[in-house]
């Protein structure tokens, strides 16, 4: 989503409260992905959709501007330094027709364990996926079974049970999009998400 102007001011934004002002800055994505946030009050809306687009709202009105990296650092340095590490994700597959991880996937599981060990309070999510053969209800339950079996393996290897949750996305989130009813082994998978 790209707009011609750096900032689209739909209306003059003034703050609703006489004694408060606030500053909002849109920050760049490390991978350059598009990003946006709308800032509104009863009088209008400003959409920030470019890195460092900013708006300062005060009782005297809204001031859209472009923040500098130096201002972001001096205003938000301590805050940004406290942001948690993002999640790391690993994907494992099963041998076809068996309730057993493939040999490749055992190596992936080792990598996931190294990541888990590097975090002070790891939370692990195990998310099961299916292909698009079968109904949503059946696939939701099947994906859940696959997730539960990976969860069991993680706990067997020593992860505390309370640190790992299993869930199911059924066929909603394919790696390879297909029509309904198509068998696709790459979509039959379990994601291990480490936070």
């Amino acid at each position, binding site marked *: 989503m790209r707009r011609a102007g750096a900032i689209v001011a739909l209306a003059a934004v003034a703050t609703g409260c006489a004694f*408060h002002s606030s500053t909002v800055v849109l920050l760049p*994505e490390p991978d350059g992905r598009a990003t946006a*946030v709308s800032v509104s009050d009863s009088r209008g809306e400003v959409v920030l959709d470019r890195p460092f687009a900013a708006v300062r709202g005060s009782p005297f009105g809204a001031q859209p501007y472009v923040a500098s990296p130096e201002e972001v650092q001096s*205003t938000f340095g301590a805050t940004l330094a*406290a942001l948690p590490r993002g999640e790391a994700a690993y994907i494992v597959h099963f041998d076809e027709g068996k309730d057993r991880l493939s040999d490749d996937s055992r190596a992936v599981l080792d990598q996931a364990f190294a990541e888990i060990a590097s975090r002070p309070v790891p939370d692990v999510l195990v998310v099961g996926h299916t292909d698009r053969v079968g109904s949503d209800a*059946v696939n939701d339950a099947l994906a859940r079974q696959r997730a539960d079996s990976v969860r069991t393996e993680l706990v067997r290897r020593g992860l505390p049970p309370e640190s790992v949750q299993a869930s199911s996305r059924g066929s909603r989130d394919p790696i390879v999009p297909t029509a309904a009813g198509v068998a696709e082994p790459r979509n039959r998978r379990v994601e291990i*998400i480490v936070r």
Partner: protein
Amino acid sequence: MTRVSALRASGVRCVLAAVLSMAATLACAAEIGQVKSAKGEVLIEREGRTLPAGVGTRLQSADVLRTGADGSAGVTMSDNSLLSVGPNSALTLDAFRFDATTHQGRFDATLSKGSLAVVSGRIAKQAPDAMKVRTPAAVLGVRGTRFAVKVDG
């Protein structure tokens, strides 16, 4: 397998799926996120009580995360939203719902003072504007993903 037993089996699967999704919802209702980093004074106000918070503290809906003059804290929510507050801040986690199966949910938070950085997660990705951050001056609709906000005065 006869038709009757096939029907029964699919009925069992449906009930199982329903029970499992209920269990997932209940787990999310109780616990919505976790403190992953903490420095200086970090407190949580919960049901009228003030509790010390640190790395590992689990968060619930309606918790207020407060930091002192030397404080900062980072939180990972269960939809993978990342939040952090700087010194002298107060952030209320007004409402948080997240369905891990459909990725639908709702996240409302209020920054009443101090500063907040956000990297939005799956709720905002699934439905832009399903995540809102309020300040005393404005409402932020989060379309994704990374921003910072500061309340003055």
